[in-house]
């Protein structure tokens, strides 16, 4: 079993999801077993304007711990993260970061640049 703990910069109550990575996908958007997949499959909303196709940054999350349990970033993910507001060294796109087990803690940032023009 794996555990995903979600904190919100907006101050909303945290959510904790325990799941079996071998049961992925949990729904149809984003990479199978990704943070987005786990959240949506367990009824927790995470913005994903491009449908989880790695074409925006609306599923930007900041990993607070458990980075070693996530797959490596692709160049496409890094290119998009470059344009994410509030980028940190542990930023990931929820649709791309696949959890292989253990416990991962992520913070959902407050803002997104995608709708700003």
């Amino acid at each position: 079993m794996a555990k995903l703990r979600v904190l919100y910069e907006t101050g909303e109550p945290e959510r904790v999801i325990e799941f079996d990575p071998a049961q992925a996908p949990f729904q149809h958007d984003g990479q199978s077993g990704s943070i987005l997949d786990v959240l949506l499959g367990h009824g927790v909303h995470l913005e994903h304007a491009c449908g989880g196709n790695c074409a925006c940054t609306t599923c930007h999350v900041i990993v607070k711990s458990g980075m070693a349990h996530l797959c490596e970033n692709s160049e496409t993910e890094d290119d998009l993260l470059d344009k994410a507001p509030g980028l940190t060294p542990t930023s990931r796109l929820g649709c791309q970061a696949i959890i292989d087990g253990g416990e991962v803690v992520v913070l959902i940032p407050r803002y997104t640049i995608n709708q700003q023009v």
Partner: protein
Amino acid sequence: MSDLTTHAETETASAVPSRPRAAYEATIERIFAHTPDTRSFFLRLPDGPCLSFKPGQFISLLLPVAGETLIRPYSIASSPEEGNLLEICLNLVPGGPGSHYLFARGLGEVLRFTGPWGTFVLDQPPEAACVFIADGAGIAPIRPMIRCALASEQRSPLHLLYNAPREGDLLYRQEWEAYARDYRRFTFEPLLSDPLSGWSGLCGPLMEYVERRYVNQDSDRSRHFYICGVGQQVTQLRDLLRRAGYQRRAVQYEKW
């Protein structure tokens, strides 16, 4: 249905990503069939403030299919100056529930969407020469980019390399040819991958042509590229150009 002030409010520091964003509603005002499996849908928003977007951005349609809401992103093929009439252009994808739903829609029907979204944009053209590489319906976001670049005060060259299977698949072809006539700094180069006999223009694999033209034939690495298409070819083009010495941020792309 939210009105357009909803969008204005989300531009401020009040955006909260942990809840779904409010959606807009638009009416299908016109449908244009470019080919049997490629259509443009013209979506009319209610009167009021225009939806503000940057050339290259997309909207995400919320499609009620099989008891759930599918999120399907579609690039905006029209320009911000066209006001509250948005054009999206898409292919009918075999087995794709989103495109099949849309191709079954008729005039007057209402679609819900969120947006605009996306960071593949060109609203302030660089001083350097720009090369736009479009594959098929990947021309959609590039169309408003080129219009914006042509309208800007920059005088750097603009080149469109447009890859499609056959001549009939070159979307907005008359528009590109008109720009090439009217603007000395704009050039249009169609490249066909499966031409009919009689085609005397460029043909062959896009990757090979780009490598020959922009990697092997000269050492100029100051160009900026804007690439859009479907599938791995887009990231392969990105890798080819970056490895050849073009600046990372000078190679912008969107892969659908």
